[in-house]
C-alpha cells in the first residue's frame, strides 16, 4: 500500500515537473486510488451521502467510499478531513453545520478551511402543528399563541441545530414568547402528535405519513422557494416577511486542493446529482437535489455563514 502510494507520488511529481501547465493530463492522473467521503451525521444525511458516493463511483475511475465519522455536531469529521493532505482524496459531505459548529466554539477553524466542490441539494425545515388545534395558517397560530398567555412550545432537533436556528429566525419576527424543546432527530413528530409541544420545526419527510393521514398540518416552509411537493406556502408568504432559511448539503475538500482536482470532483458530483436514480432515491428521503457549481457554492457558504453567525449571536449561542 505504502509502496504503491510512494510510487504514484513519485510518478505524479515527475509528471508535474515535465508538464507544468498540463491540466488535462493532471486530470487524467486523478484519481489513482479510492477517494474517502467523510460522513458527519447519521440518519437520512448518512443515507443520502451513501447513495451519492455510489452514484459518483459509477462515473469515476476509482471508487468513492463513504466513511462515517460522526460526533460533536460534525466537529470530529471536519477536524479529521481538515488535517488530511489537500490532494482531493479526502472529501467531506458537508452542510451548514460547518457554521453552527464553528460558532458553538467546537472547531478551531471555520468554513474557510475547506475548498467548495459543489452543492448537491437542499433540505428545507417546515413548521407543523396538530390539525385538531384548528390553526389553518401561520397568522392564526401566532394570534392563538399570543392569547394563550403561556409560552409556545416548539420542538426542534437540538439547541444550536439548524432547525432551532430556523425556528428562532421565524418566531423572532413575531416577537413571541417561545420555549425551544430539543429532541434528538426523529422524535419531535411523535411529541407533537401527543400534544406535549404546540409546534414542531423539522424536515418535511419526517411528517409525511402524518400529513397524509390528516393528523398534522404544515403551516409554512422556511425557504424562499415553495416546496416541490404539497401545497405549503413559504413562511415569507404566510406572514413572516423576508424569512429565507434553507439548509444545503454539498461536498468540500481541504483548503489548497488543486483546482483541476476540484473540477474533476465537481464533474463527478454534477453527473451523480443529475442522474435520475439519485433524484428518485433522494426525493424518497426528503432531500431535494439542486446542483450548484463550486464558485456559486462557495459564495453561498460565505453568505450563510454570516447569517448563521448573526442568528446564533441573537440566540446567545455564539461562543466566538
Amino acid at each position, binding site marked *: 500500500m505504502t509502496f504503491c502510494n510512494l510510487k504514484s507520488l513519485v510518478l505524479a511529481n515527475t509528471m508535474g515537473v515535465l508538464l507544468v501547465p498540463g491540466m488535462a493530463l493532471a486530470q487524467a492522473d486523478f484519481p489513482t486510488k479510492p477517494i474517502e467521503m467523510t460522513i458527519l451525521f*447519521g*440518519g*437520512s444525511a*448518512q*443515507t443520502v451521502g*451513501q*447513495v451519492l458516493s*455510489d452514484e459518483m463511483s459509477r462515473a469515476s475511475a476509482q471508487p468513492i467510499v*463513504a*466513511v*462515517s*465519522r*460522526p*460526533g*460533536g*455536531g460534525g*466537529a*470530529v469529521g471536519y*477536524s479529521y478531513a481538515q488535517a488530511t493532505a489537500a490532494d482531493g482524496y479526502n472529501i467531506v459531505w458537508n452542510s451548514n453545520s460547518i457554521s453552527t459548529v464553528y460558532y*458553538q*466554539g*467546537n*472547531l*478551531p477553524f471555520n468554513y474557510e478551511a475547506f475548498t467548495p466542490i459543489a452543492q448537491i441539494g437542499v433540505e428545507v425545515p417546515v413548521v407543523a402543528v396538530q390539525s385538531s388545534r384548528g390553526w389553518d395558517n401561520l397568522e392564526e397560530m401566532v394570534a392563538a399563541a399570543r392569547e394563550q398567555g403561556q*409560552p409556545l*412550545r416548539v420542538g426542534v432537533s*437540538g*439547541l*444550536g441545530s439548524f432547525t432551532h436556528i430556523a425556528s428562532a429566525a421565524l418566531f423572532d419576527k413575531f416577537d413571541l414568547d417561545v*420555549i*425551544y*424543546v*430539543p*429532541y*434528538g432527530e*426523529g*422524535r419531535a*413528530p*411523535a*411529541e407533537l*402528535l*401527543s400534544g*406535549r*409541544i404546540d409546534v414542531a420545526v423539522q424536515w418535511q*419527510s*419526517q411528517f*409525511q*405519513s*402524518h400529513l*397524509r*393521514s390528516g393528523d398534522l398540518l404544515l403551516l409554512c416552509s422556511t425557504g424562499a422557494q415553495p416546496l416541490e411537493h404539497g401545497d405549503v406556502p413559504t413562511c415569507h408568504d404566510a406572514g413572516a416577511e423576508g424569512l429565507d432559511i434553507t439548509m444545503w448539503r454539498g461536498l468540500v475538500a481541504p483548503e489548497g486542493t488543486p483546482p483541476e482536482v476540484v473540477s474533476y470532483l465537481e464533474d463527478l458530483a454534477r453527473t451523480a446529482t443529475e442522474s435520475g436514480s439519485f433524484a428518485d*432515491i433522494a426525493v*424518497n*428521503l*426528503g432531500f431535494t437535489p439542486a446542483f450548484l457549481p463550486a464558485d456559486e457554492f462557495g459564495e453561498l457558504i460565505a453568505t450563510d455563514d454570516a447569517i448563521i453567525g448573526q442568528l446564533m449571536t441573537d440566540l446567545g449561542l455564539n461562543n466566538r
Partner: protein
Amino acid sequence: MTAAAVAFEPHSLLALVLGSFFGLAFGCIPGLTYTMALALILPLTFTLEPMMAIGVLVSTYVGGASGGTVAAILVGVPGTPSSAATVADGYALAKAGKASITIAMATICSTLGGLFSLLVMVASVQALSNVALAFGPAEIFALVVFGMATICGLAEQSLVRGLIGGVIGLMVMTIGQDPIDGVSRLTFGNVNLLQGVDLLVAMIGLFAVPQVVSTLFEHKSGSSTIVDGKSVKVELPKLGYIWGYRWNILRSSILGTVIGAIPGTSGTISAFLAYSQEKRLAKNPENWGKGDMGGVVAPETANNAVTGGAMIPMLGLGIPGDPATALILGGLLIHGIQPGALLFVEAPDVVYSLYMFYGLAYVLVTVIMLFGVHLFVQALKIPPHLLAVAIMVLCVVGSYSLRNSMFDVGSMIVVGFFGYLLQKARIPLTPILLGLVLGPAMEREFRTAMIMSGDSYSILLSPIALLFFGMALLVIVMSLVGMVRSRVPKTA
C-alpha cells in the same frame, strides 16, 4: 396469502439467509454490532427489489440481535451491549462445562421472545403505537431511574461497591458534548474527546481487557486451565427443560416487548430489568450470578422481544425506537415505503411480508445457531492465552470500525486498564455498564422535561412517571430490607 407467496420466493429466502448469516456474524464477534451490520448492508439494498431489501434488513436485524449471546457465554465478553446482562450467569455456566446447552437455551429463548413480540406486533401494532406516544421525556426519565434502581439488585456483595460502579459509569458518559446545549465537557480542547466515550468502546474495554489481562497472567504463572478436548460435548436442551422456564420466558417477553415499544430505550435496559425481575422472583436468588440458567433465559428473552417491540412505533408511527430501527426505516424510505398508520391501509402486503420475513428470520437464525453450537464450542478447545490474543485483535478492530477512529481504540485500552484495576478493587462491572447505558438518556430526558416545563418539577408527576418512580423506590427498599435481614443473623 400473497405475502406468504412473496416471503417463500427463492430470492426472498436467499435474501433472508444472507441477512441472517451477516447479522449473526456481526452479533457473535465482540465489538461488531448489528447496528454496524445494518449500516454496512444498507447500501447493498438500494438496488434490490423492495421486498428483498426488506428481507435483508429484517433478517440482519434479527440475526444480529440473536448473535450477541455467543461471545457473552463462551468468553465472557458480550457481543453487543444488550447481551451484557447474560455474561454473569452465561459465562459461569460455560466454565462449568455447560456451554453448548447454555448457547442453545439462549438461542431458543431469544427466538421465543422474538416471536412473542412479533405476535404482539401483528395483533396490536396500531393500539400499541399509542403507548409510545404516552412516553414523553418525563416518563422516559422515570423509566430510566427505575432501570438505575436495579443496580441495587445487581450489586452482588456490596451495595456501596455497586453504587461506586454506577457513578463511575455515569461520570464517564459526561465526557464530550453535552446532549442539550452542545457544550464541551472534560474535553480539554481536544476535538476527539468531543465525541465522548462510545458506549460500545467502553463496554469492550470493560469486559474484554480485564479478561485478557488475567488470562495472560494466569498463563505466565502456569495456572491456566486448558479445557480437555473430550469434555466439550454438545448437549441440547430437552423440551421439558425449556418448559420449566415458561413463566420466566413469558414475563421477560412481555417486559421486553413493552420496553421496546418505548422510543429512546433499548435492549440493554430491558435485559437488565428482566434479569433483576427474575432474580427477585427466583427460588434461589443466591445462585444467580454464579451460573443459573434463569439468568441467561431472562435477559436473552427480553433483549430479543425488544426487536418486535421497537418495530411497533417504527411501523405504526414512522418513529424509530433505536439506531438500528432508524437504519431499517431509512432502507424502507429509499424504496418509497413510508411507515405510518396509512401503510396498513394502502400497502398491507408490505406489512404482512415484513411480518413473514420477521418470523422466518427467527426460525432461520435458530436453525443456524443450533447447528452452529457444534462449531462455537470448539472455541473452548483453543488454549485460553491464544484465544485471549484473538479476542484482543477483534476488540481493536471493533473499536476502530465503530466510528473509523483510532482515538476510540485508545479509549478502549484506557477504559480496559481502569476496568482491570476496578475489578482488582472488587467493583462489579455491570453497574458501571448500567451507568454507561442509562446515563446519557437520564440526563437528556430530565433536562428536556425541565426545559418543557419551564423548570417546574410538576412535569415529573404524571401518572406514568409516578408509577415508575414508585417501582424504583420499591426496588431500593426491598433490596435494602433483604440486605439488612441477611446481615442480622450473622451479627446476632
